[in-house]
């Protein structure tokens, strides 16, 4: 196996980085059970980075800012930092969307909560034929196994 000089330098840099990382003191990342509620923080809605540094030693807080796009973009954040989500959201919060069988779509079950950006709002039955042609991967993510595809099978077979 031939290792050229560039690969060797890169390997040494990675190893040096790992040694430095392992020997550096780490911030405490053991999270609290509960985050103060919005009522405790004031009457105005806040983003994470309004109180926390956008990036501090423990977390890159700006990536958790609940912008209007967060509901469709939280996969990685929830995946890598589930315990941070659970400081504010109860366990069943995720299950309105992420469950094996959801007979009532989230925007219907929580219809009066219009401030939440929820998928499939209103007349989605008509529009889904277009969105599914354009990007079926977004459908498959939630409707891709035999149980969750039951809603599709009624019409599509």
């Amino acid at each position: 196996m031939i290792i050229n000089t560039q690969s060797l330098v890169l390997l040494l840099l990675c190893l040096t980085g790992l040694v430095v990382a392992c020997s550096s003191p780490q911030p405490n990342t053991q999270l609290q059970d509960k985050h103060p509620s919005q009522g405790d923080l004031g009457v105005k809605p806040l983003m994470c980075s309004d109180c926390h540094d956008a990036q501090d030693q423990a977390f890159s807080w700006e990536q958790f800012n609940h912008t209007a796009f967060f509901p469709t973009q939280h996969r990685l954040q929830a995946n890598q930092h589930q315990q941070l989500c659970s400081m504010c959201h109860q366990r069943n919060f995720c299950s309105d969307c992420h469950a094996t069988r959801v007979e009532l779509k989230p925007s219907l079950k929580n219809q009066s909560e219009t401030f939440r950006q929820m998928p499939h709002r209103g007349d989605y039955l008509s529009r889904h034929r277009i969105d599914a042609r354009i990007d079926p991967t977004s459908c498959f993510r939630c409707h891709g196994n035999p149980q969750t595809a039951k809603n599709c099978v009624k019409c599509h077979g």
Partner: protein
Amino acid sequence: MHTCCGSYSRLLLRTIYAQALVLAIFSFSFAADFNVTSETLFRSFERDTKSGSDELVLPGYEYLKLDVDRITNQSLSFHAYGWVRHDFSDSSYYPEESDGELIYAYLEYAGPKHNQSLRLGRQHVFSGVANDALDGLSFTSDLGDLFSVSAYGGLPVGLADTAGQSGDVLWGGRLAHHYRSFYNIGLSYQKVDNDDSAVTSKVGIDSAFLLPMNVGLYGNSVRNMETEGWAEHVYWLHLLVGNFSIRPYYEMFEYDDYFDAGALSGGPFASLAHSGETLDSLGLDLSWQQSPDWTFGAKAKSYSYEVNETSNFLSLSATWSGDYLTRVGGELGKMKGDAADNDYLLVRLFFYLDHLADKLWVDFVSGDGLYTGYDQEIYGQDYAYFASLGAGKTFIDDALQIKLSADYSKDPYFDNDLRSMLTVTCRFGAGQ
């Protein structure tokens, strides 16, 4: 298949009530925190069914959530959540008069250090390439300051309907390396067997890097080990510049690898697994918090394909935020591409007025309006309207909440569809 959903629902109800009884005894015996949330929904609408047209349908739903914390000590807890539905009308709208689902029910041990968690029972696992419900065991823990690990295994709930759960196995795990907030890299693997034959096995890499100038680079890639091809690559940058949040991104999906789920490829997705299609998307999400009250957003996304014709989506939004959950806003979106039957215009206006108890009898009122205009007719109609109104009030220190909503739609599938819903939420327990 569940051949007798009525019996299934009754069994489910009995199971939940039995668990509630056992845990109530537990909670009183060991001074645990016992919390129950009951959400009861009554809906009404009309549908054409096998037995006639404009038949009244009156489904009632019960969503029950149990949380028992500090069983015997601070670390042990039990959590369950499920729903049942019964149609109180004589319509034959639903295949079964009653139905239900146990969404999760697990015992959890949370260790005092290292973010340790051990869960036993029905649960939903989000871990790298996993986004699945299983009846089994999962474990997560930090390994020192620089590594964390998760592992899970059990019977996949999503495959229970295909010849039962015998021979079905789902297992996998994720190993992550992270250094402060500078980076977090995870390598995950998942394998699913159905009736003793492999359905899927995939590996994934998820990563988050903090670059100079407060720029974050995030993304994930998934490789289908059965087809030996990359199923998806999704990567984005996140920049905070003043009050602007900027997120440019790139997505790539290989349909043959993404949709191939072995023997389980079915329904509308089956043909996509052999389409030879590739979807490449470029997009930009922009959010501007102009003031504490006003937030503006813009979204642009282009879709290009190996086989299909391209499409582009653009939307603009504005939201005014008042006190608490009060919001008033709107969104305007347009999908436009080479295929006219994919083009539509979307307009949404909404409001949610919170903390009205001083001015009105109710605590909140909400409304939603949606218009969609289709460039090509769907079932002879090129538009759709949707409107909803809602109101709610809480009683007994928020332990009881009653919400009423009604919605109306006129669209290619339904003429003058009027529906209503009453939601009664009751919370009991020490944590409420």
